[in-house]
Each structure stands twice: as structure tokens, then as C-alpha cells.
């Protein structure tokens, strides 16, 4: 399927000093600038040093910052995160990289019990500023064990910030915010977007706030809430529907935890209809939370039930091309769900 480059910048006012770059270039540049700005930041992960990472997200950083700030680690996901927790409480700002989301299960103890709870469990004595970068996502032919999107697991972990950008602008801006706060941030980067998405990025320093969604397309008839790859497909669907006279508002969540209820509810108050479009299996996915929240806090706004558009309840993502093709919703499936919601 061809990737549509419909992504607009989330924030609008980018200014004139911009250059165009890919999603992955924005990440690399973000890392580079943050490491230059704050020498407490170091990266640690498998194959990230001279090799530059399996997707080359850390290309050039080892040469620039040397072996004490860009560390090739043994295959020890659990240590990667827990060790980073230790380094964080000792005064550094670590950025461990989990090579694929499919291996993050080995690091769950570190993320959930330690990074996310360090502040709470110590009554605020210890903080854990760190940025766990994790590459995820389907639609690259990765099969069952190189495609997962496990964001929903971590949306159940108070203390953790979970972000996932859809555009180069947000990729860099969210990364910078992640490095500048005191919270542990799980920074999810979508591998399908790495090189398929290009966009304008300011040449000056800027940040994108954590915990804030963005209305990336304004509309009157229905609110679509999405993020990352699915945001692009939702925007594609919105374009199709515009031709039919359906005016779709599209929200990019950007931060999945703690997420921006206000922006969602404000939009649903206006449109009275909501569709949540997300990656990974349907049950207890991102849409379960967003849908329940709208039902709880925005029921009186609604003229139709909240719809979830997602892959089916099968592991993400089966390998054989016909199965993979049938897995993630495409713009047509999303458009169909939106039509039904509007017609309800």
C-alpha cells in the first residue's frame, strides 16, 4: 500500500526557518542536539554505536560523542532499562533503546516497577528522568515478532509518559521535551514512518509539549482520534470523505499517557461523534480507554456510539502478504467506519 504524505504539522505555526526532513532524520537530529545541549544524556542499546542502530536512527552519534555516551550494550533488555534507572538516579539522563517493541516484554520489570514507580515509591526523593526509545509497528513485513505495537500495555502504568509522534516535527519536538523533564518517557517511534514521512522541521530549537494532543484537521461532523501510522491513514480517509461532504476532525494524540482528555472532549462536544483508530489488536487496546473515557465524561455530547477501528484480535502482524494486508485497517476501512458513524 502506498503511504500518503498527508501529515500536516501538528502545531501549525512552524515559521519560515524550516527544512524538510524524514521522521528518522528528525529523531537523529533531536538526539544529536539534545546530547549537545546536555552532557548528562547518554545512549545505550544494541547495535547503536558504530553501527548506528538497525534502522540507523543513531547514525553519526558515536563518532560525535564517543563510547562513553553512545554505548553498545549486550543483549540484555532487562538490564538496559534497570541499569538506566540506576544511572538516572545517579544524576545522568539515560536513553536506552529497545531495538523492537517485540522484545520490550523482557524489559517490563524495569519500565513498570522501577522507572515508572521510582518517584512514587520513594516519596519523590528519587526521580527517573530517562527516555526509553522503542521502535515499533506493522506494515513493514516484519511478521509476528518484528511488528508489535504494545502501547496499550504501558498506558496502564501511572508514572510513565508514553508518546508516539506521527510527523518529523513532533518526532523532534516530543523527543526534546522528553529529555528536558523529570519523568521517564517511553518514546515510541513507528518504523513504517521512518522513511515514508517527510515534513518541515524548524531549524531553531523548539519543543512539543508532553500530554497535549493536536487537532491536525478541523471538521464539523465527526472526530477521529488516532496517532502515528494510523493518523496518516485516518487523514487519508478524511480526504476521501471530504469529497462526499463529510467533514472530519482529526486529533493526533501524540502522548498516549497521560493523554489529553480535554482536547478530545472539546472536539466531541462539537462533532457529537467519535471514532478511535489504532494499531494492534482490538480488545483492551488504546481505543478501549479513549472510548470508555468519552462514554464516561462525554456521553451527553454523543449522537452515535463511539466506534473503534483497529486490527482484529489476532497477534500483530501475521507475515504472509494476504494476511498482513488484511491486518491493519487501511483508509477505506477507516472511511467506512466513519461513514457509518456519521449516518447513525
Amino acid at each position, binding site marked *: 500500500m502506498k503511504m500518503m504524505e498527508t501529515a500536516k504539522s501538528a502545531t501549525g505555526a512552524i515559521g519560515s526557518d524550516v527544512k524538510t526532513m524524514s521522521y528518522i532524520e528528525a529523531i537523529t537530529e533531536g538526539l544529536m542536539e539534545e546530547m549537545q545541549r546536555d552532557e548528562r544524556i*547518554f545512549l545505550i542499546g544494541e547495535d547503536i554505536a558504530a553501527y548506528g542502530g538497525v534502522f540507523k536512527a543513531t547514525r553519526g552519534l558515536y563518532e560525535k560523542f564517543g563510547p*562513553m*555516551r553512545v554505548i553498545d*550494550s*549486550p543483549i*540484555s533488555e*532487562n*538490564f538496559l532499562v*534497570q*541499569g*538506566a*534507572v*540506576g*544511572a*538516572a*538516579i*545517579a*544524576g*545522568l539522563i*539515560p536513553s536506552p533503546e529497545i531495538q523492537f517493541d517485540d522484545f520490550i516484554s523482557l524489559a517490563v*520489570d*524495569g519500565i513498570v*516497577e*522501577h522507572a515508572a*514507580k*521510582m*518517584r*512514587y*515509591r*520513594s*516519596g*519523590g*526523593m*528519587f*526521580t527517573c*528522568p530517562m527516555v526509553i526509545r522503542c521502535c515499533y509497528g506493522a506494515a513493514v513485513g516484519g511478521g509476528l515478532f518484528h511488528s508489535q505495537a504494545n502501547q496499550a500495555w504501558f498506558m496502564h502504568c*501511572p*508514572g510513565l*509518559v508514553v508518546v508516539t509522534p506521527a510527523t518529523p516535527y513532533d518526532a523532534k519536538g516530543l523527543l526534546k*521535551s522528553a529529555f*528536558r*523533564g*523529570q*519523568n521517564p518517557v517511553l518514546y515510541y517511534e513507528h518504523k513504517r514512518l521512518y522513511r515514508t514521512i517527510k515534513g518541515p522541521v524548524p531549524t531553531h530549537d523548539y*519543543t512539543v*509539549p*508532553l*500530554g497535549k494532543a493536536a487537532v491536525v484537521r478541523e471538521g464539523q461532523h465527526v472526530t477521529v482520534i488516532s496517532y502515528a501510522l494510523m493518523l496518516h491513514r485516518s487523514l487519508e480517509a478524511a480526504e476521501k470523505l471530504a469529497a462526499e461532504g463529510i467533514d472530519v476532525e482529526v486529533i493526533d494524540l501524540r502522548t498516549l499517557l*497521560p493523554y489529553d482528555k480535554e482536547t478530545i472532549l472539546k472536539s466531541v462536544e462539537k462533532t457529537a461523534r467519535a471514532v478511535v483508530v489504532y494499531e494492534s489488536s482490538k480488545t483492551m487496546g488504546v481505543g478501549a480507554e479513549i472510548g470508555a473515557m468519552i462514554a464516561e465524561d462525554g456521553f451527553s455530547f454523543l449522537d452515535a456510539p463511539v466506534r473503534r477501528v483497529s486490527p482484529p484480535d489476532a497477534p500483530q502482524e501475521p507475515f504472509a502478504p494476504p494476511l498482513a494486508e488484511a491486518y491493519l485497517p487501511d483508509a477505506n476501512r477507516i472511511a467506512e467506519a466513519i461513514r457509518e458513524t456519521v449516518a447513525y
Partner: protein
Amino acid sequence: MPVSNDELKGLYYYLTLVRTTDERCRRLFKQGRFHGTYFSAVGQEATVVGSCYGLRAEDTIGIQHREMGAAITKGMPLKYIMAELFARKDSPDRGKSHPCHYGWKPLGIITPASTIAAQTVIATGCALAYKIQKKDNVAVCFVGEGATSNGVWHEALNFAGVHKLNCVYVVQNNLWAESVPASLGVPVEDVSERAKAYGFPGVTIDGNDLFATYETSQDAIRRARRGEGPTLIEMKTYRWYGHSEIDPANYRTQEELEYWKKRDPVPRFEKILMERGVIDESYKQATMQRIEREIEEAIDFAEKSPQPEPHEILEDVYAPLV
């Protein structure tokens, strides 16, 4: 390096303080003055006192449920130990975690979680930071023998071996992991053998001999400070009571317990100091009086400290978002 009389007196003070506090905490728990759980380490005191005595404020210790004595010897004020057990507002964790999760940032005592072995791993991460920061701080990382079968413990030691981190790994082999004997937990006689796999020295010592635990730890700490890498010290010891206060420890024999009670580290050390004339009966009495007073003051502080209030439930979940 010969151990000076001042050091011996310091060690004696902490050994006695840790023993007396531990026995007192058991009573407090049984009296229902604090709730939840309590993990006694009576019988094991020489391990933690020997490895923590003389550490610098900026050194780190990674401890867990049974290492109250390590926190005390590192210098954590007794009143905060008690406030932690009582889950009061003045506890360093503000009542958030649960009893026996001692932490105190000013002295690098990392507030633990319950996941076995994690404290070792996080402290290893501190040592990685020391290397990057070019500091000669040391991380002393504690586990029981049971925790050495946990995968992440291996990941940490492997990493520390690769990077020659300033770590001292103290394994308190007390023969039991809750109800599981060491024979079913580790396939080697001495856990210290495992160090070989990580490329650094491992030694097994009598964990109830404070001279041995102190001197061996001091050697390992100095080695680490010089940047020569980690050491694993296995200290063979024994806990007299159950895994926690609700465990009657029916899985072990009376003979085993008696065997180890005869090797009580406290009178053993005291006797030698008496024989050497480092301390005498009146010094002992004065020390005991001081300790009793310190413990009473700490309990008083904890009991007078207010309970956390319900609205605090959301405090410290997040730092402000940026």
C-alpha cells in the same frame, strides 16, 4: 591494612545496633504496632555491617527486604527506618511503598521495589553512571542466594564485568529462599563460582565473622575505587527466624538452627574485642544504653508522625510535564 581500634568500636556499635533494632522491630510487629510485614535478618548482621561500614555518603547501596542493617550502617537515621516501617508521613517514601523498603537519598540508599535482584541491577546502573562521570564512588549490591538465579542478576553482573564497573556484589547465602533450600536454587556449592563467568573474582567467606566480612569488603571496595572492576563476595550465613514474621519456617530442622545459633556473629565479635581489650563490660553497658535510647527515640518519632492523608494518593506519580 590493620583494622584500628576505632574501626572495631564503630563496627561493634553497628553490629549491636542492628541486632537490637531488628529484635525490637520483630516485637513491634508482633504487638501490632506496625502492619504489613517484617523481614528479620537476625543472625546475619555481620554481612551488612561488614560491607557497609566506612562507605562514603556518595557511595550507593542496592538493598532489599532483609537489608535494614545495611541502611542503618550506611547511616540512614533510625527515625526514618521506623517511620518507614510504620508507613507514616515522615517516612522517606511518605507511606507509599511497604514495610522494609528502606531508602534514603542523601546517603545513596536506593528505595527498592519487591522484584528480587532488581536492587543489584539498579545499583549497577549507578556504577555505570560513576564510570561515565569519572567518579570513584562505589555501588555495593546486595542479594540473597535465591536472587542469584534470577536472569537480570546475570545481565547486571555480565555488564559490570564487561565495563569493569565499581561494583561490589554481596551475596548473603543464608541457605534458604523463603522455603526453597539453596540446593534447589543454585547448582553450585558456592555462589561465588558464578563470578568466573563474568570475568571478575568471586570469594566465599564466613558471613558470621565480622572481621572477614569487613576486611574482604574493604579490599573489594578499594579495588573498585581504583577502577579495577567488580568483586563478588559470597557470605555464608543464616537467618534465625522465618522468611517473614508470619513464616514459622517449618521446612528446616531444629538441628540446623542450633548449629547456626552457635555461630552467632554478635557475641563472637564482642568476645574478641573484650579479649583484645578494645572494649570492656562498662563500655558494653554504655553502648547498650545508648542504643536503647536511640531506638526508643526513633519509635517515638515514628509513632508521633501523622498518617498520610488520602489526598496524597496522587502525589509523586509524575513530575510536572514539560
